[in-house]
C-alpha cells in the first residue's frame, strides 16, 4: 500500500529584486506517494522548476521560500524548509535525489565520472574501498553505460549527452533514494535518446521502488509516463488529476488549451498536376573539419547526395535528429552554403549563379529560422528589419511606400504595425517569430524555408504560429520546406515527408502513408520515440 511521502503545503517563492518583488510560485500544494510518478507540467515561467528546486532548498540565494514542505520518513515528519542545513544535506542525494535538464553542464567537467558517483557514496554510506568501487561499477551497468569498468575513468566531455544523463541518474540512485526529482531530464536530448532514458527511469523505478516527481513541458511524455499530473501556470496549480482522467476530462480551461495545443490536423493535399517548384538532385555539402595551413583540409560530408522535389503549394517536411544534416540541406537549397549537385527553382538552374545573379531569385525564396532571439538583428528596429529586403529588391519604393508594405506585412502576421519602431528585445519569443515571418513575407515570396520555426516556443504559442503558417500558405499559395525534429508538427503540416539520418535519406513519401506504415527500422524507432503511446 502506498504511503504519503511528500507534501507541499501552500508553497510560495518570492524573488525580491531591485525593480520589485516577483512572486514565482504562489500557494502551491501537492502531494506524492511512495512509488508514484507525479508529473508537474507547465510552460516556461509557470514556476514548475522553482517548485521542484524548493524541495531540496537548491533555489538561488536570492529566493525566499515560505509555506511548508513535509517529508515523511519512518522516523517522523520533517519540514524541509525549516530543518537545519546539516539535516537537509543529509537528505540531499540520500533520501531525495535530483537530476537536471542540462546533461552537458550538470557534471563537473574536470572530474572523472566514477569519482563523481563515488563522492555520493562517500558522503552518505559507510561503503569504502573495494565495496564502493564495485557499487560505482554496478550503478554504471544498471544505467546502461557499456564497459562500465573502463568508462568510470572517463571525463564528462568524452560522453554523449544521453550517456551523461545516465551518469547523472547513476549518481542520483547511488544511495537508493525514496524520491527522484527529475527536472526536464530529457528536454535537451534527441527523441530516440529521450525514449531510452525514459525507459531506463521506468525500469529503475520498479527496481528501487522510487517515487518520481517529473517536471516537464511535454504532454506526450506525461501521458506515457506519469500516474498523476499537476498542471501549473504562472506560479499556481490549476489542476491536479490522475493522468488518464486529465487527458479525457480536463476541467480547467488552461489544461484544455494545453491539450489542444498538441499539433493536430493535416494539410489538405495539392493538385497532383501542380508544377514543380523546387527540384534538387544529388545535393552534397561538405565542411572542412580541420583547417590546415599548408595541407589539404579534412572534410566531413554533412549532406550526402540527396534528391528532393517540391510542387507548388506543397509542404515538404524534413525530419531528423540533431546532426542529421537537415538544416544544412535547407541552407544549401537556398544557396546559403556551398554545395555540389543541382538545384532548380521554377525554371532557373541555381547551381552556377553567382551572388549577383542569385539576388533576383532571393526575393522569391525566403527563410524563417528556429531561434527567435538570434534571427533578428538586435540593433535594428522592427521596421528596419522588415523593410531591409525591400531596400534590396525594390529600391524604387519611397519611404512612405515602404512603410505601407511593412505595415501590410505586420498585419498579416497579426502584429500591431505601430510596433514598427521598437527593437526585437522588447518582444516575446512568439512575437519575434512573427516578425521573422513578416520579414520574409514582405517580399511576397513563393517558397519559404522554415527551419524549426516553432521548436523554441511553448506549446500554446507554437499552436498559434502553426495556425498562422497554415493561413498564410492558403492565402498566398506558398510552398514550404518545413524542417523539424518534432514529428507531430511535421505530420500536421506536411504533404510529403523526408526522414534524414547522417546526411542521407532514410525514407520519403506521402505523409499519411509514411506515418501509418513506416518501412524503415529507423523511421519506426523515431516514431515509437516520438509518439510514446503508439503500439510497438
Amino acid at each position, binding site marked *: 500500500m502506498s504511503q504519503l511521502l511528500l507534501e507541499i503545503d501552500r508553497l510560495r517563492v518570492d524573488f525580491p529584486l531591485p525593480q520589485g518583488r516577483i512572486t514565482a510560485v504562489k500557494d502551491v500544494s501537492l502531494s506524492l506517494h511512495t512509488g508514484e510518478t507525479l508529473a508537474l507540467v507547465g510552460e516556461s515561467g509557470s514556476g514548475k522548476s522553482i517548485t521542484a528546486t524548493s524541495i531540496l532548498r537548491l533555489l538561488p540565494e536570492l529566493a525566499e521560500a515560505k509555506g511548508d514542505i513535509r517529508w515523511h520518513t519512518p522516523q517522523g515528519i520533517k519540514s524541509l524548509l525549516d530543518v537545519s542545513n546539516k539535516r537537509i544535506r543529509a537528505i540531499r542525494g540520500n533520501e531525495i535525489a535530483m537530476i537536471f535538464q542540462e546533461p552537458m553542464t550538470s557534471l563537473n567537467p574536470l572530474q572523472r565520472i566514477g569519482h563523481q558517483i563515488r563522492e555520493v557514496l562517500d558522503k552518505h554510506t559507510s561503503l569504502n574501498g573495494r565495496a564502493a568501487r564495485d557499487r560505482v561499477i554496478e550503478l554504471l551497468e544498471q544505467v546502461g553505460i557499456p564497459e562500465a569498468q573502463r568508462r568510470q575513468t572517463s571525463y564528462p566531455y568524452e560522453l554523449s549527452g544521453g550517456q551523461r544523463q545516465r551518469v547523472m541518474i547513476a549518481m542520483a540512485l547511488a544511495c537508493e533514494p525514496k524520491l527522484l526529482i527529475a527536472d526536464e531530464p530529457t528536454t535537451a536530448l534527441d527523441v530516440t535518446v529521450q525514449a531510452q532514458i525514459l525507459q531506463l527511469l521506468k525500469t529503475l523505478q520498479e527496481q528501487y521502488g522510487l517515487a518520481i516527481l517529473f517536471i516537464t513541458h511535454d504532454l506526450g511524455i506525461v501521458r506515457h509516463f506519469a500516474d498523476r499530473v499537476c498542471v501549473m501556470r504562472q506560479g499556481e496549480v490549476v489542476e491536479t488529476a490522475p493522468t488518464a482522467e486529465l487527458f479525457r476530462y480536463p476541467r480547467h480551461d488552461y489544461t484544455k488549451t494545453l491539450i489542444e495545443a498538441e499539433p493536430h490536423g493535416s494539410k489538405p493535399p495539392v493538385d497532383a498536376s501542380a508544377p514543380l517548384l523546387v527540384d534538387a538532385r544529388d545535393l552534397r555539402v561538405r565542411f572542412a573539419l580541420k583547417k590546415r595551413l599548408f595541407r589539404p583540409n579534412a572534410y566531413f560530408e554533412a549532406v550526402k547526395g540527396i534528391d528532393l522535389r517540391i510542387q507548388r503549394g506543397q509542404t515538404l517536411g524534413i525530419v531528423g535528429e540533431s546532426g542529421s544534416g537537415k538544416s544544412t540541406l535547407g541552407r544549401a537549397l537556398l544557396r*546559403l552554403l556551398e554545395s555540389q549537385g543541382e538545384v532548380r527553382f521554377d525554371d532557373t538552374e541555381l547551381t552556377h549563379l553567382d551572388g549577383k545573379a542569385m539576388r533576383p531569385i532571393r526575393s522569391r*525564396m525566403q527563410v524563417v529560422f528556429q531561434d527567435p532571439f538570434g534571427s533578428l538583428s538586435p*540593433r535594428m528596429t522592427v521596421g528596419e528589419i522588415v523593410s531591409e529586403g525591400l531596400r534590396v529588391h525594390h529600391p524604387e519604393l519611397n519611404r512612405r511606400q515602404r512603410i505601407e508594405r511593412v505595415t501590410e506585412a505586420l498585419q498579416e502576421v497579426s502584429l500591431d504595425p505601430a510596433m514598427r*519602431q521598437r527593437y526585437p528585445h522588447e518582444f516575446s519569443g512568439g512575437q519575434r517569430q512573427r516578425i521573422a515571418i513578416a520579414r520574409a513575407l514582405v517580399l511576397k515570396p513563393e517558397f519559404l524555408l522554415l527551419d524549426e520555426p516553432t521548436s523554441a516556443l511553448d506549446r500554446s504559442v507554437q499552436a498559434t504560429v502553426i495556425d498562422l503558417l497554415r493561413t498564410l500558405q492558403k492565402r498566398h499559395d506558398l510552398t514550404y520546406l518545413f524542417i523539424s525534429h518534432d514529428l507531430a508538427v511535421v505530420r500536421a503540416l506536411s504533404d510529403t515527408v523526408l526522414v534524414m539520418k547522417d546526411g542521407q535519406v532514410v525514407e520519403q513519401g506521402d505523409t499519411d502513408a509514411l506515418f501509418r506504415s513506416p518501412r524503415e527500422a529507423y523511421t519506426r524507432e523515431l516514431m515509437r520515440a516520438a509518439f510514446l503511446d503508439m503500439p510497438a
Partner: protein
Amino acid sequence: MHTASEAHTVGESLGREAWRRLKQNRAAMTSLVILIILTVACIAGPWLTPWGLSEVDWNAFTAPPSLAEGHYAGTDANGRDLLTRSLYGGQISLSVAVVATLVSLVIGVLYGAIAGFMGGRVDNLMMRFVDIMYSLPFMFLVILMMVLFGRHILLIYAAIGAVEWLDMSRIVRGQTLALKRREFVEAARALGVTNRTIIVRHLIPNTLGPVIVYVTLTVPKVILLESFLSFLGLGVQEPMTSWGVLISEGTDMMETAPWMLIVPSAFLALTLFCLNFLGDGLRDALDPRTR
C-alpha cells in the same frame, strides 16, 4: 521584464537602454564627470594659471604649495609651477591616450573584422601571426625603438598603438566569427543583402558594445605605458613633459619636496581610477548578464 503589450510604441534601442543603466551607476557617472573636468582643465588650465610651462619663479625654488604665492601645488627645483606643469603633462598623457588608442582601435578593428569575416585559411594565418606577436616582449621592442629612433612623440603614439591592437583584434575577430554564424546574418544573406551592407549594418553595430568597453579599458593601459616610458626617461623630452616625467622628477626629490611626487601621482592615479570605474560600469551597462 519587458512585455510588448506596454503602451509605448517608440522602442528603446540597446544603446539607450545601456545609457540608462550606466546613469544609475553612481561610481561610473562620477568618474565620467571627473574625467570631463580633468580633460577640460588640462586643455584650458595652462592658460588660466598665472605661470608658463617653463617659466621660472626666481623667488620660489622647491616651494611647497601655497595659495598666497600663486603656486597652488608648489614648485619644482627649477622654480617652475607644478600645477601648470601637471596640467601640461596631462595634455601629453591624454593626447597619447587618445591617439594611441585610436591607432590600436583602427588596426585592431580592421584586422579582426577581416580575419573573422574571411574565416578559413586567411583567418588562420592572420591569427597565427597575432599569436606570435603576443609572445613578443613588446615593451622592450618599444624601448628599443625609442633608443634607436629618438624619443619623438609621434613615435610614442605609433609604438604604443602598435602594441595595444592585438587584444582589440582578437575581440573583434571573436565577435565577428560569432555574429557571422548568427541567424540574422544568414537571414540578411537570404534577402540578398550584399556583403558590404552586412558588414556595415549587421556586423559592426553589434561588435560596438565590446569594442567600446575595451576602448575604455585600453585608455588607462596606454596612459600607464606612456608614463612608464617617461618615468624611465625614455618617453617625452624637455621642454615637453608628462605625468610620468613629473613623477620621475618627484621621485628624485621626494625626501625634500614630497609634493613633487604627490601632485602628478594624484593626477595620474585619479585619471586611471576614473577610467577603470567607467570601463567596469560600461561593461555592466552593455552586458547586464555579467553583474
